C-alpha cells in the first residue's frame, strides 16, 4: 500500500519539477504518437471508407483481415520494423534505427488498421442509411467517400482517438525500434518500463499517473472541440 501513496507523491514531484527530464519525455511521446495518428488517419480513414463503399471480389476477406490487424501485437510490429531498419536489413542504409522516426513508423503500422477498421464500420452503417439519397443526387461511390467521411466526422473522431490511445499506451514496439536511449528515444512508456526494471516502483507508477492524466487531457480537449463544433452546426 505504501507504494501507492509514494506513487502519488512521485507524480506530484515530477509535475512540479516540470522543466526536468519529464517535459522532454512528455513532448517526445506526444510528438511521436500525434504524428503517427495524423498519418494513420490520412491513410486509414479513406481506406476504411473505400472498403465500406466499393464492391469488389475478396472484399469480405479484406474486411476480416483488417479487423484482425487491429490486434497486431506491438512486439511483433516492433521486431519487423527493427529487422527492416537494422543495418543488416533491407532499409538499413537509411540509418533510421533508434530514432524517433522509427518509433513513429512502428506506431503508424500499429494503428492504421484500427482507424481503418473502425472507419469502415462507421461509414458502412451511414451508407446503408443514405445510399438511396446520395445515389438519387447522382453521386457515385467515389464522391460518396468524401461526403460520408465529412458527415461521419464526429463518429470518426472516436476511431482516431482509439488509435491515439493505442499509440500512446504501447511499449513493446517503441522499446525495440527506439532502444529507449536517454534524451533521444525515451518516451513515457519506456521510462516506466525502465523504472520498473530499476525496482523504483513508486516512480514508475508516478510516471504512469502522469501518462494517464495526459491521455485524459488530450481526450478532454478533443471532446471540447467536438462539442463546440457540433453546437455550431446545430445553431
Amino acid at each position: 500500500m505504501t507504494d501507492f501513496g509514494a506513487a502519488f507523491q512521485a507524480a506530484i514531484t515530477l509535475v512540479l519539477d516540470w522543466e526536468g527530464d519529464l517535459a522532454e519525455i512528455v513532448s517526445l511521446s506526444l510528438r511521436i504518437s500525434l504524428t503517427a495518428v495524423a498519418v494513420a488517419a490520412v491513410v486509414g480513414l479513406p481506406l476504411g471508407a473505400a472498403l465500406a463503399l466499393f464492391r469488389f471480389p475478396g472484399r469480405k476477406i479484406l474486411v476480416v483481415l483488417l479487423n484482425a490487424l487491429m490486434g497486431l501485437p506491438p512486439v511483433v510490429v516492433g521486431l519487423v520494423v527493427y529487422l527492416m531498419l537494422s543495418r543488416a536489413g533491407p532499409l538499413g542504409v537509411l540509418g533510421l534505427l533508434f530514432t524517433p522516426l522509427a518509433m513513429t513508423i512502428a506506431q503508424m503500422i500499429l494503428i492504421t488498421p484500427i482507424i481503418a477498421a473502425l472507419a469502415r464500420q462507421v461509414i458502412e452503417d451511414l451508407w446503408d442509411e443514405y445510399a438511396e439519397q446520395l445515389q438519387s443526387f447522382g453521386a457515385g461511390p467515389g464522391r460518396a467517400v468524401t461526403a460520408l467521411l465529412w458527415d461521419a466526422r464526429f463518429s470518426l473522431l472516436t476511431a482516431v482517438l482509439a488509435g491515439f490511445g493505442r499509440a500512446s499506451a504501447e511499449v513493446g514496439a517503441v522499446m525495440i525500434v527506439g532502444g529507449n536511449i536517454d534524451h533521444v528515444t525515451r518516451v513515457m512508456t519506456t521510462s516506466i518500463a525502465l523504472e520498473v526494471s530499476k525496482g523504483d516502483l513508486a516512480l514508475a507508477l508516478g510516471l504512469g499517473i502522469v501518462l494517464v492524466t495526459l491521455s485524459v487531457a488530450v481526450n478532454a480537449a478533443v471532446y471540447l472541440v467536438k462539442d463546440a463544433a457540433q453546437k455550431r452546426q446545430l445553431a
Partner: protein
Amino acid sequence: MIRTLTRRALLGAALTVATSLALAPLVTPTAQAADRFITVASTTSTQNSGLFGFILPKFQAATGIEVRVVAVGTGKAIRMAQDGDADVLFVHHRPSEEKFVAEGFGVKRFDVMYNDFVIVGPQADPAGIKGGKDAAAAMKTIADAKAPFASRGDDSGTHKKEKGLWKAAGVDAAAASGTWYRETGSGMGATLNTAVAMNAYALTDRGTWLSFKNRGDLVVVVEGDPRLFNPYGVILVSAKKHPHVKSADGQAFIDWLVSKDGQQAIADFKVGGEQLFTPSAGG
C-alpha cells in the same frame, strides 16, 4: 455549400499545419541533440546502476561527442553490434567478446572495469547458504533443497555466468525449469522484482543490486568467490564489416574510457557511498 467548403478548407489547413508541426522536430534534430554522436550497445547492468548517467556527461563535455546507449542483454547487444547497429560494444562476457573480435566483427577488446556477482536470497535463507564463499556449492545446496531460484533465462552475460556456475555445481537446472528453477526471460531488474515477489534466490551483479530500490526481504547471501568476478570489456565495431561505423568517434570513446580521466570517473561513481565498479584498464 460554400460554408461547408470553406470549413473543409480550414480543417484541411489546420490538419496540414498540425501534421507539419508534429513532423518537423522528427526530421530536424532538436537543438539539444549534438550533431556528433555514437551508438553504444551495452548491458542493462551498466545502465540500471546509473554508471552511464554519471560518466557520459563528462565524456561529452571533454570531446563534444554524444553517446547514445541502447541497454539490452549481452547476447542481444552482441547481435546488434554484429548487424552494424552500434559503433561500440560494451558488455561483460569475456568468451563472447573474444569470439566477437576473432570473427572479425570487432577491432580489439579493451579491459575497462570490473565488479562482481553476488547471490541474493531471502533473509530466512531456506537453503541455509548464507555467509558461504563457494558459489557453486551454494547453488548445489539450493538445487538440493529445491528452494526457488529466479534466473534471467535471456542469454545475457549474467545468465551465461549463471549457467557456468550450474555446470560447475553439477546441476542440470534447465531440467527443473518451471518447478523450483524459474526463468523470467527478462532483464536483471525485472528478474530481481520477480525474486523479491517469490522470495527466491537469484544471481545478480553487485552494481544493479546496490542501486536496486525494491529489495524487499532479499539480502546478499554469497559473495567473494573468485568465480563471481565480472569483468567488462569495450570493443570498437570493425569498419571492415560495417563501413558506416563511426570509427574515429567510437575509438575516442574507448580511448577516454581507458584514460586516466575515464578510469577516475568510473572510480568516482558511487551509490550510497559504495563504489560500484573498479577501473581495470591496462591492468
